[in-house]
C-alpha cells in the first residue's frame, strides 16, 4: 500500500512538473491593438525594444558605435515626446542571435519586446516560427504608407501576403572600388573584369575581394555571388517557390567566378570567413569589393593605392575616401544585354506576437516616420536609403556617397535575393556550399551537375 502511495505521489508530481513546463502547442495569440486596457491617467508604461545597438556602450571603437550613439541621443527625445505615456527601455541583443532569441521567447511564451529591430533577411525565419504580427491593416491606415517604396514593402511581405515588418531603410548591394586600381574605369563587363584581374595580378594585386566563404550560414550567397548570378541574367528561384540554379546564365556566372578565383584574381583571405575578406580592401591589395551599401560602416581604416591614409577608424574613413575620389561606387559588371544585378535588403521594425504594448510600437513607428526623425534613423542605424520616397530628396541624402550610390542603384536591377524561396536560411546555405565547392574546392567539378543536385535537395522539401 505504501509503495502504491509513493508511486502515485511520484506520478502526480511528475505530471505537475511536466504540465508546468510544457510549451504552448500554438503561439500565443497576438494582442490586437487597442485590446490593452487603457492606462490609467498618468501611468507610464515601459516600451521595450530589442535593438542590436546598446546605448550604454560608449566604446568609440565599437563596430556598432553609430547605432549606440543614435539610441543615446534619441531615447530621451522619445521619452520627452511621449511623456506620461511611454518610457522607452532598450534591451540590446547580439545581431546574429536576435532572431533565435525572439523565436525562443515567443514559442516559450516568455517576455518579448514591443518592437523588434530587424532586417528582411530574417523575415522568413521569424514568419515560419510564428514570431511576428501581420501589420498590413494597421500600416495601410497610416499616412506614410502611400509614400513607401513598393520594393521595400515587398521585401517585408510574408509568403501569405501579410506585411510582417515596416521598412525604414533599404540597403542595396554595390561595388566599392579603389579608383586608382582601375585607371581606365571600373569594368562594366565580366570579360573586362577578368582582363583587369590579369593586369593587377601582374602587379601583385587582386581585382576583387568578396565574401567567398560559407561562413555565417552561407551569407555569401546574398552578396557578391547573387550580384554575379543576377548580372549574368540568372537567379536562385523559378518564381513558384522552387529553387532554380541549373540554368545557362547561372552556369556562366559560376564559370566567371571560378575563373576569377582559379586565375588568382581574388586573394585567399576572401575564403577565410569572419568578414576577414574586408582586410584586402582596407589595404588596397584588392581593387574592388562587392558588398552591401552599409559595408562602409565596418571597412576601416583605409589605405589608398596612392598612400593616403584614412585612419579615423570609424565609418567616416570610407565616406572621406569617397569624398576625396579615392573610392568610387560602381555597379557589378554585367553581361551584354543585362542590367547589373544586386540584392536589396531592407531594415526596419517588426512587432512580435505576444508584445505587451503593441500600441507603443505603433506610436514609435509613427514617430520614426515623422520628417524630424526619419532621415536621422535612416542615416544612422539604417545605413541605407530611405524607404519613404519623400525623405530621399532631403539635403542629408545629397552627399557624394549617397549621390554615387543613388546612381549605381538606378543603373542596377536590385531585388531581394531569395525571390519566391520560402526556406531562405536553408537556401542560402545550400547555394553558398555549392558555389564554394565549384569555384574553390573542386574547380573541375561539372557546374551544371552540382547546381542541379543542389536545387534538387532544396526542392525535395517543398
Amino acid at each position, binding site marked *: 500500500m505504501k509503495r502504491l502511495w509513493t508511486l502515485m505521489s*511520484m506520478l502526480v508530481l511528475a505530471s505537475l512538473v*511536466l504540465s508546468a513546463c510544457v510549451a504552448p502547442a500554438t503561439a500565443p495569440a497576438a494582442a490586437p491593438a487597442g485590446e490593452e486596457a487603457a492606462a490609467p491617467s498618468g501611468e507610464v508604461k515601459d516600451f521595450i525594444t530589442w535593438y542590436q545597438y546598446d546605448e550604454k556602450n560608449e566604446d568609440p571603437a565599437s563596430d556598432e558605435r553609430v547605432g549606440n550613439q543614435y539610441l543615446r541621443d534619441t531615447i530621451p527625445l522619445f521619452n520627452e515626446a511621449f511623456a506620461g505615456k511611454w518610457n522607452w527601455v532598450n534591451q540590446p541583443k547580439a545581431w546574429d542571435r536576435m532572431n533565435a532569441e525572439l523565436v525562443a521567447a515567443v*514559442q516559450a511564451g516568455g517576455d518579448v519586446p514591443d518592437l523588434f529591430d530587424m532586417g528582411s533577411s530574417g523575415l522568413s525565419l521569424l514568419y515560419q*516560427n*510564428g514570431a511576428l504580427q501581420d501589420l498590413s491593416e494597421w500600416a495601410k491606415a497610416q499616412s506614410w504608407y502611400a509614400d513607401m517604396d513598393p520594393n521595400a514593402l515587398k521585401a517585408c511581405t510574408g509568403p501569405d501576403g501579410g506585411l510582417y515588418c515596416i521598412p525604414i531603410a533599404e540597403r542595396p548591394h554595390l561595388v566599392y572600388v579603389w579608383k586608382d586600381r582601375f585607371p581606365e574605369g571600373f569594368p562594366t563587363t565580366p570579360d573586362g573584369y577578368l582582363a583587369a584581374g590579369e593586369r593587377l595580378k601582374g602587379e601583385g594585386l587582386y581585382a576583387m575581394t568578396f565574401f567567398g566563404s560559407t561562413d555565417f550560414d552561407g551569407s555569401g550567397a546574398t552578396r557578391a555571388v547573387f550580384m554575379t548570378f543576377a548580372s549574368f541574367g540568372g537567379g536562385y528561384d523559378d518564381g513558384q517557390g522552387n529553387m532554380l540554379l541549373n540554368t545557362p546564365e547561372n552556369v556562366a556566372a559560376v564559370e566567371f567566378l571560378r575563373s576569377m578565383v582559379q586565375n588568382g584574381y581574388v586573394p585567399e583571405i576572401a575564403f577565410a*570567413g569572419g568578414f576577414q575578406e574586408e582586410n584586402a580592401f582596407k589595404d588596397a591589395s584588392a581593387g574592388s569589393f562587392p558588398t552591401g551599401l552599409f559595408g562602409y560602416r565596418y571597412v576601416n581604416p583605409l589605405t589608398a593605392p596612392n598612400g593616403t591614409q584614412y585612419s579615423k577608424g570609424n565609418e567616416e574613413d570610407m565616406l572621406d575616401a569617397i569624398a576625396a575620389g579615392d573610392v568610387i561606387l560602381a555597379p557589378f559588371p554585367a553581361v551584354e544585354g543585362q542590367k547589373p544585378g544586386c540584392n536589396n535588403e531592407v531594415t526596419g521594425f517588426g512587432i512580435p506576437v505576444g508584445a505587451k504594448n503593441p500600441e507603443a510600437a505603433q506610436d514609435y513607428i509613427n514617430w520614426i516616420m515623422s520628417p524630424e526623425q526619419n532621415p536621422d534613423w535612416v542615416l544612422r542605424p539604417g545605413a541605407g536609403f530611405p524607404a519613404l520616397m519623400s525623405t530621399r530628396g532631403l539635403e542629408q541624402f545629397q552627399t557624394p556617397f549617397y549621390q554615387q550610390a543613388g546612381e549605381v542603384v538606378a543603373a542596377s536591377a536590385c531585388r531581394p535575393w531569395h525571390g519566391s524561396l520560402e526556406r531562405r536560411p536553408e537556401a542560402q546555405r545550400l547555394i553558398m556550399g555549392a558555389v564554394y565547392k565549384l569555384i574553390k574546392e573542386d574547380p573541375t567539378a561539372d557546374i551544371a551537375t552540382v547546381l542541379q543536385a543542389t536545387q534538387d535537395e532544396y526542392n525535395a522539401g517543398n
Partner: protein
Amino acid sequence: MQQTQIRKKRRGPFHTMLPFWLILPTVLVLLAIQVYPAFYTIWLSLHERQPQGWEYVGFNNFVRLFGMGVFGESVGHTIVFLVGYTSLTLVLGFIIALLLNRKLKLSGLYVTLLFIPWIIADIIVGIVFRLLVVPDYGLLSGILQNPAIFPPNGISVLTATRPPSWFGGFPFPPALAMIYLIMASAWRALPFITLLLLAAMQTVSNEVIESSRMDGANGWQVVRHMMIPLMLPTLVVALFSLTLGGMNGVGMVFSLTGGGPGSATEVLSYLLYVLGWSQLNFGRAAALAMLIAVVNWILILGTLRVTRVEERTN
C-alpha cells in the same frame, strides 16, 4: 515492545515517508531539467513548426535529415575528428604524464603551467588559434604561406582545399583546417587528460616497475607491458571522456573554422547548432539531437561498464 509500537504509531506516515520527502527536491529538479527536456526533444523531433503552430510530421524530420547532403559528410567529419582528437590527446597526454612522473625539478610549476589551456574557454582558444593562421594577415601566415618554406605555393590552413579522398566519399585524408582543429582541441584538452593519466600512473606500484626492470625489461617494454595494462581502465575512461566531449563540443568549431572551408570541418554538433540556432529548424535539429544522444548513451554505458569492471578488479 508495547512502547515501540506506540512510538511507531506516534511517528505517523510523515516519519515513515521521510526518505521520500528528502529526495523529493532532487527528483523534482531532475524531472524539470533532464526528463522533461528529453521528452520534449522527442516530441519536437516528430513535429515541424508552421506559422500557425506545430504540425505533427511523424518521422519526416529524420527522413529529411538523412536526405541532407551535408549530414553524411558531417558523420565522416565527426569520425575523423574524434579519432584524431582522442588519439593525439591520449598519446601526448601519456607522454607528458610519463615525463612528469619522473619527479623532475619544478614539476609542480610544470603542472601549473600545463593547466593554463584548460582554464581558457574553448571559444577563446578557437579565436586565438584562428588569428594565428588567418590567410595573408595572421601571425604565422608569413611563414605558412611562404613558398620557399612550404613549396610550391605555401599553405593556407583555413582555406586550403581538401585533398582527394582515399575512400570514396569518406573525408580522409582530412583538410588542413580539420587537422588544425584537432590540434587546437587537443591542446585544450591535454591538461585534464595528462593529470588524469599522471594520477593513474602514480598508483602503479614502484615494486612492479622495479621488478620488471630487474627481469631485463627496457623502458618501452615497461610502458607497453606493465604500465599500459595497469592503467587501462583509466585510459578507457579518458578515451570515453574525450569522445563525449568531442562529440558534443561546438565552441571550438564555431570560433576557429565556422565549419569551413566549405564544409570541411562541419561535425555533427556544429550541424546541430546550425539547424537549431541559425536556421531555427527545431524539428530537424531535435531529430539530429536524438541521434547524437543515442551515440552518447552508448558511450556512457561503455564508460559505466568499464568503471564497474575496474571496481570489481580492485
